[in-house]
C-alpha cells in the first residue's frame, strides 16, 4: 500500500496540530507582525509576535494552508514561546537544516522535530518552512 509511505509525513501529532492548532488567531498587543505568502500554492500565513525584553512572550498565527504548513506553524508557536530572540533564531536555523536533510541540532526543536519526515518529500518542504521563515522575518523586521 503506497499510501503507508505517507505515515512518516503525516504522523498523528502532525494531524492533531493541524486539526487543533495551538496559538491560532491574532494578538492585540504584538510588537512584530508579518504576512507571508507561498506564491507557488497561494497559502497565506499571518504571524503576530510579542517581544518583551528580547524574549517572545506571546505569539499567534492565522491564515490558511495545508496540513503540513498549519501543523508546522502550530508546533513552531509552541516551541518558541518564552524563548529569547537568539534562541528562536537558533531554532529557525536548526529547523531549516533538518528539513533540508542536513546535520541539525533537532533537540532544541521540541515537537517540531517530528517534521523531519518532510525532508523525504521535497515538494512539501516549502509548506513546512513557511512558519519558520515568517518567524525569522518578523523578528528581523525593522
Amino acid at each position: 500500500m503506497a499510501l503507508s509511505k505517507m505515515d512518516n509525513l503525516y504522523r498523528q501529532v502532525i494531524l492533531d496540530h493541524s486539526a487543533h492548532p495551538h496559538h491560532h488567531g491574532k494578538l492585540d498587543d504584538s510588537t512584530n507582525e508579518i504576512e507571508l505568502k507561498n506564491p507557488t500554492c497561494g497559502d497565506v500565513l499571518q504571524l503576530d509576535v510579542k517581544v518583551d525584553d528580547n524574549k517572545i512572550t506571546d505569539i499567534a498565527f492565522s491564515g490558511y494552508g495545508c496540513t503540513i504548513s498549519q501543523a508546522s506553524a502550530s508546533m513552531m508557536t509552541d516551541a518558541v514561546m518564552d524563548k529569547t530572540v537568539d534562541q528562536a533564531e537558533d531554532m529557525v536555523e536548526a529547523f531549516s537544516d533538518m528539513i533540508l536533510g542536513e546535520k541539525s541540532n533537532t533537540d532544541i526543536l521540541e515537537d517540531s522535530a517530528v517534521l523531519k519526515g518532510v525532508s523525504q518529500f521535497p515538494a512539501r518542504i516549502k509548506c513546512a518552512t513557511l512558519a519558520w521563515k515568517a518567524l525569522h522575518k518578523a523578528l528581523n523586521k525593522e
Partner: protein
Amino acid sequence: MDNKSNPWRKDFPILDQKVNDEDLVYLDNAATTQKPQAVIDAISDFYSNDNANVHRGVHTLAERSTEEFEAAREKIQKFINAESSEEIIYTKGTTDSLNIVARSYGQSNIEAGDEIVISYLEHHSNLVPWQQLAIQKHATLKYIDLTDDGFVDLKDAKKQITDKTKIVSIAHVSNVMGVENPVKEIAKIAHQHGAIMVVDGAQSVPHMPVDVQDLDCDFLAFSGHKMLGPTGIGVLYGKKDLLNAMPPVDFGGEMINFVHLQDTSWTDLPWKFEAGTPNIAGAIVLGKAIDYLNEIGMDKIQSYESELVDYVLPKILAIPDVTVYGPSDPKKHTSVISFNLNGLHPHDLATGLDMEGVAVRAGHHCAQPLMTYLGLSATARASFYLYNTKEDADKLVDAIIATKEFFKDGTI
C-alpha cells in the same frame, strides 16, 4: 480502454515507469504534455545532422535548417488554418505571445480612458500583461462574469464590451474550469464595437481543431510544450494587416531590413517580430509534434478525450465529499478537471495521489483572481491527453478514495 489498447501510449517512453513503486499515471497535461519518441528523436536528429543558424549562411547546412524552420511555420499555418505563413510568429510560448500583443499592439493603440476586457477565469499570462498596460496607459481593465457552470458569460460580455473597448482577450479553454468558452461569439461582439479579439489558445490548440479564420480572432497565442512539442517554443498568430501595422518589440539581428547609423528599417513579416537567433530546433520539432497530431487527427483526439471525460467525471462526482469545479455535465466539460476533497487541502491530496503514482497539479493554477472569485485558495487538477486511458481514470478515482480514507479523521 486499458493502457495496452491505447494505440498511442507506447509512443511515449516516459509513461512506462514506476513512481513511488506504482505505475505512473500522468494527469498533469494542462501544465505540460509528454513527448512521443518521434519528437524526442527529432531533437537529436536536428543537432546530429542539420544544425546551423537560419536565414544567414549560404552554406548547405544553413540552407537545410532554414528550409526546415520555414517548413515548420507552414505546418503551423495549416494546423490553425491561417491564411498565410507570414501570420505565424515564433515565440517562447503563450506568455511571450500575449506579451508581444500587449507591448506592440497595446502600446500603439491603447489610450487613457480606453477599455481592455478579459474574464475572471484568465490565466495570469492573459491577465497581468493587460493589467500592466492598463495601469501604464490609464485605461480600464474590465472582467466578464462567469456563468454558474463556469463559462465566460456571453450575456455579461455584451454588457462589458462597449464602444470604448479596444482589446478583448479570452481563454479559449480554461486551464481550471474545464470549459470551452464561446470565443467566436465574443469575437463578433468585440468586432461590432471596433475592438480586436485575442484568444489564449494554450489549452485549446493541443486538444481540438482550431480554425482562426472560422473564429475570426485577430490574435491567437499557444505553446509547443502543451501539444507534445518542446518547451521554449510557442506561436503568435495575428492577422496580417494588424501585424504589418504593429511596431516590433525586440530589436537586433534577423528583424532588420537595413541598418543605418541613425535609423533602421524593419524586415517583412513574420521575421520583424523574431529578433535574434530563434529557437530553431524548437520550431522544427514543434513541426514534428504537429505531424504526429495530424496523423491521428484533431477531431479524433477531441472525441477520444470527451469519451474519457464521459467515463471519469461521473466517477469523481460520485465520491462523497468531492467538489468538482465547472460543469457537472460531462458533455460540457473538457478534459481539465479541477476538484477538492472537502476538509483536505489540495496539497495533501496531491501528495497522497503522488504516493499512488498519480501526478496531478495542486495549487492556484496561475489564476489567483479566479480562486478569489470562487472563494478558494487552491484546487487539485487532473488533466488528460490522448495517451491517457480509462485505466488511468480508474487509478485516479481509486487514489482519491484511498487518500480520503487515509485522512478519514479529518485534518483541517
